């Protein structure tokens, strides 16, 4: 077993375990902290796939900015044990069944996808995720979506002001 394979399985186990901990933690702040661990593990995966840019974005935007927003929301809502809503057992059951069926479909698809068998992720090779290649694609081929995404940011900004500003 090479060191990349060991790292891959370690990061996978870490990501899955901490994702489960996000759900199981009673304290929402602990959930957020576990989520940060998930993001770090996934960033590790990105580095293994030679996608440094994605790894950096994942750390800066998700583990950095979005987690701050998550913490803000938790602080805004003032969650504690007393105000935690009691969920209906039927609702939990329905959620488990529908989520389980989705999992079943996805697993069966991956099993029956004949063109995918024997193909694994290209670990440590491939240069599509390198920043220079990504930048070249972004500023030549994908420039239209790039410019249009600025309109998306702008509308989000206007929305934030409309909703968030004190009257």
């Amino acid at each position, binding site marked *: 077993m090479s060191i990349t394979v060991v790292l891959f399985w370690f990061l996978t186990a870490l990501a899955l375990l901490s994702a489960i901990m996000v759900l199981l933690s009673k304290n929402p702040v602990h959930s957020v902290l576990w989520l940060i661990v998930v993001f770090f593990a996934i960033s590790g995966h990105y580095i293994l796939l030679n996608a440094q840019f994605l790894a950096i974005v994942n750390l800066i935007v998700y583990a950095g900015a979005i987690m701050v927003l998550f913490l803000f929301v938790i602080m805004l809502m003032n969650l504690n044990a007393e105000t935690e809503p009691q969920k209906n057992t039927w609702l939990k059951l329905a959620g488990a069944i529908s989520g389980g069926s989705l999992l079943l479909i996805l697993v069966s698809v991956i099993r029956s996808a004949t063109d995918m068998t024997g193909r694994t992720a290209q670990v440590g090779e491939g240069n599509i995720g390198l920043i220079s290649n990504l930048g070249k694609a972004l500023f030549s081929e994908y420039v239209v979506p790039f410019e249009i995404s600025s309109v998306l940011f702008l509308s989000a*900004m206007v929305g934030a002001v409309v909703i968030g500003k004190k009257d």
Partner: protein
Amino acid sequence: MGSVSLIILTIAAIVFSAGGILVSKIFVKGSKNPRKGQPYECGIPTETSPWKQFHVGYYLFALLFLIFDVEIIFLYPWAVVVKKVGMMALVEISIFLFILFMGFLYAHKEGALKWM
């Protein structure tokens, strides 16, 4: 190999930080006094949970920060390839930044960035 040195660095970092905690756990004589867990020299002991409800006004700043954070992310690949792509890249990023600058100007004029 770049990744091996990265892994060695990671392991070294973990050993270095975890080692400090471990060593102090082993060698320091523990004191069981509950006062030790309290904030030191801060006057009155806390009565309720220190996790207070925040004012919703902070959230607007967090949101605006997030938007500009994502914008900055796009500047990184741009800076790497600007020489290769040439003049076009400069024009493209200028349009992008101009549109977002409009948003910033708007938020400023609207007074959204004023502290309450």
